[in-house]
């Protein structure tokens, strides 16, 4: 049986396992229908021209996680921001791990999607927000929606500043040789509230795991959301990340995506600017080697006047790795005084790596400032010579320049401990000690 058929056939069994009375049953069924009609995207779809899921979906995966596995904290501690206090929502092979988690209902909600779906007191929120800003035509999002059960649920009430960052971490243990995960996150930041969130998918040993994740983020008026995606998984793990962000008046949402490891990563990052004077920041550092493949597919939809968006993605590619950047900016006819900027700069460290980069600007308003630029190049030879003439060996000189290249993306990281970690990770990936404190 093909994997698509398996997904369709298993749905009944899936819903039997959970409570039928939950409020999204109908949405699940509708979404399954969408997925049935559309199937997995193929390279014939313009949006998937440079990224093929064929090899991924030709295989078979376990859909239902077994009972919760336990992991010793000391074995996974390094994947947490253990140096500081955080809220944690942790899953092991798709199943919530109360032992590793640190949730709260004290003044804000940091808990589970399954709880939000099953408890009456959340009903109104689910009705208001669940699956409201997703792309209803997107088959992978529909697939995730049809299997919605678990994930993180975050609600920050009006004028509350979350004092600790929230870590959403998914571990996969490898107990299933091939595992298909579909976490579903709902994050609502009410008026004037603030939060920092980290999301990470991490397999603990080599095995074939594919995560098809959907996250909806609602930033209300004057809200501030600082979101970090850490993608540094093993070379056997793939991730399809579908993130949808709705912004109301004066809200500020920043998403940093660090793609440093994994087999195949597709980031569908969608911003919908619905109120005036929104700020949106999309930044990414991609540092790949071997056969890794990362595809950033961004959309910034300027649907209101006087908003500002900044996109800055840097990529460094070597040894047959492949990078794709497709950045779409849509400026509605009514969205006058829009400022929309987009940059995608790439360095190829050798001639086996490839990059495809494509800006897509659809501008229907006349009083706007929009710019885009993309570059693909090698490290500057004269600059390398300059560094080497000062005694810095070639490898370190390359690393220093690569680091410098990515540095302005890291500068806006507002969690010092995370910034340091990412810096160290980049240095480690480059295989050198940069010789100074990052």
């Amino acid at each position, binding site marked *: 049986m093909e994997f698509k058929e398996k997904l369709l056939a298993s749905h009944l069994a899936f819903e039997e396992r959970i409570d039928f009375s939950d409020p999204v049953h109908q949405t699940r069924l509708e979404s399954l229908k969408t997925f049935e009609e559309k199937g997995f995207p193929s390279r014939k779809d313009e949006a998937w021209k440079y990224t093929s899921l064929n090899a991924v979906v030709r295989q078979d995966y376990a859909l239902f996680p077994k009972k919760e596995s336990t992991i010793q904290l000391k074995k996974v501690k390094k994947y947490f921001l253990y140096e500081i206090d955080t809220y944690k929502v942790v899953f092991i092979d798709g199943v919530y791990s109360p032992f590793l988690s640190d949730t709260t209902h004290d003044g804000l909600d940091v808990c589970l999607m399954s709880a939000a779906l099953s408890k009456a007191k959340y009903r109104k929120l689910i009705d208001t927000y669940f699956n409201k800003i997703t792309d209803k035509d997107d088959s992978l999002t529909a697939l995730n929606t049809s299997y919605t059960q678990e994930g993180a649920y975050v609600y920050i009430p009006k004028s509350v500043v979350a004092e600790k960052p929230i870590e959403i971490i998914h571990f996969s243990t490898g107990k299933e040789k091939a595992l298909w995960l579909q976490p579903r996150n709902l994050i609502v930041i009410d008026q004037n509230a603030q939060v920092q969130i980290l999301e990470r998918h991490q397999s603990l040993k080599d095995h074939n795991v594919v995560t098809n994740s959907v996250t909806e983020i609602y930033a209300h008026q004057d809200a501030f959301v600082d979101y970090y995606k850490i993608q540094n998984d093993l070379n056997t793990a793939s991730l399809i990340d579908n993130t949808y962000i709705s912004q109301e008046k004066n809200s500020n949402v920043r998403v940093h995506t660090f793609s440093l490891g994994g087999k195949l990563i597709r980031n569908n990052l969608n911003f919908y600017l619905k109120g005036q004077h929104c700020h949106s920041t999309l930044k990414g550092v991609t540092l790949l080697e071997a056969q890794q493949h990362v595809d950033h597919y961004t959309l910034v939809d300027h649907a209101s006047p006087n908003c500002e968006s900044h996109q800055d993605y840097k990529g460094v590619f070597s040894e047959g790795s492949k990078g794709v950047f497709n950045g779409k900016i849509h400026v509605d006819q009514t969205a006058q005084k829009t400022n929309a900027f987009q940059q995608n700069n790439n360095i190829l460290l050798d001639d086996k790596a490839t990059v495809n980069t494509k800006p897509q600007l659809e501008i229907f308003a006349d009083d706007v400032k929009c710019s885009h630029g993309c570059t693909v190049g090698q490290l500057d030879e004269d*600059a390398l010579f300059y560094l*080497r003439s*000062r005694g810095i060996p070639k490898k370190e000189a390359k690393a220093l320049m690569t680091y410098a290249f990515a*540095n*302005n993306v890291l500068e806006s990281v507002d969690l010092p401990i995370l910034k340091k970690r990412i810096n160290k990770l980049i240095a480690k990936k480059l295989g050198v000690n940069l*010789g100074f404190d990052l």
Partner: protein
Amino acid sequence: MLTIENLHAQVEGKQILNGIDLDVKAGEVHAIMGPNGSGKSTLSSVIAGHQDYEVNQGTMLLEGEDLAELAPEERAHKGIFLSFQYPIEIPGVSVTNFIKTAINASRKAKGLEDMAANVMLKKIREKSSLLEIDSRFLSRSLNEGFSGGEKKRNEIFQMAMLEPKLSILDETDSGLDIDALKIVANGVNKLRSSENAIIVITHYQRLLEYIVPDFVHVLFDGKIVKSGTKDLAIELEEKGYDWIKEMA
């Protein structure tokens, strides 16, 4: 210190140096002058080991050791320093971090531990004040948005920090006003000692009023066509390069 014999070099198939002989001893300052296109900058790039230049004949020895097979960084570790005519901008790396990295890379190559942070800091303070460099300047990205004068001062600051045996100053005077020129020249003069040597590459005599050379060589068509003392520089300033061309 540096002995160059019959040096021939080409870049992208074009022969630039056609048999250079030069002997620079410790404690000496040599000026190399010449019209545009005579091969001055090529000579400095070849000594520093730029990969685009191919030495096809002759030898370069630093304290008796052949430089031919050494990478640029290895030449730096042996004590060669090139002050660039056009220093490269490296956004994202501060002057301080750059110089720390460079010093510790050289120390590592010599089997030494990293320089202690407080020693490094003291040295940076001392050498930056020598070149009248403001401390805020040190935390800026290397050469990014620097004025011509700031770039050249930064080059000499690096020279002061790295304490090379042989320094090559490639057109260090270009783009400098007279005040900046004096600061740079003053810095260089304070770094002169009986242990090190300096090669000053320049088109004009102006810099040589401040950094007084022991020897002056005139380069034309990839060869040294005339050598003399500092008076030769003055003669060139008065007569221009045409009589040299005629002589060649």
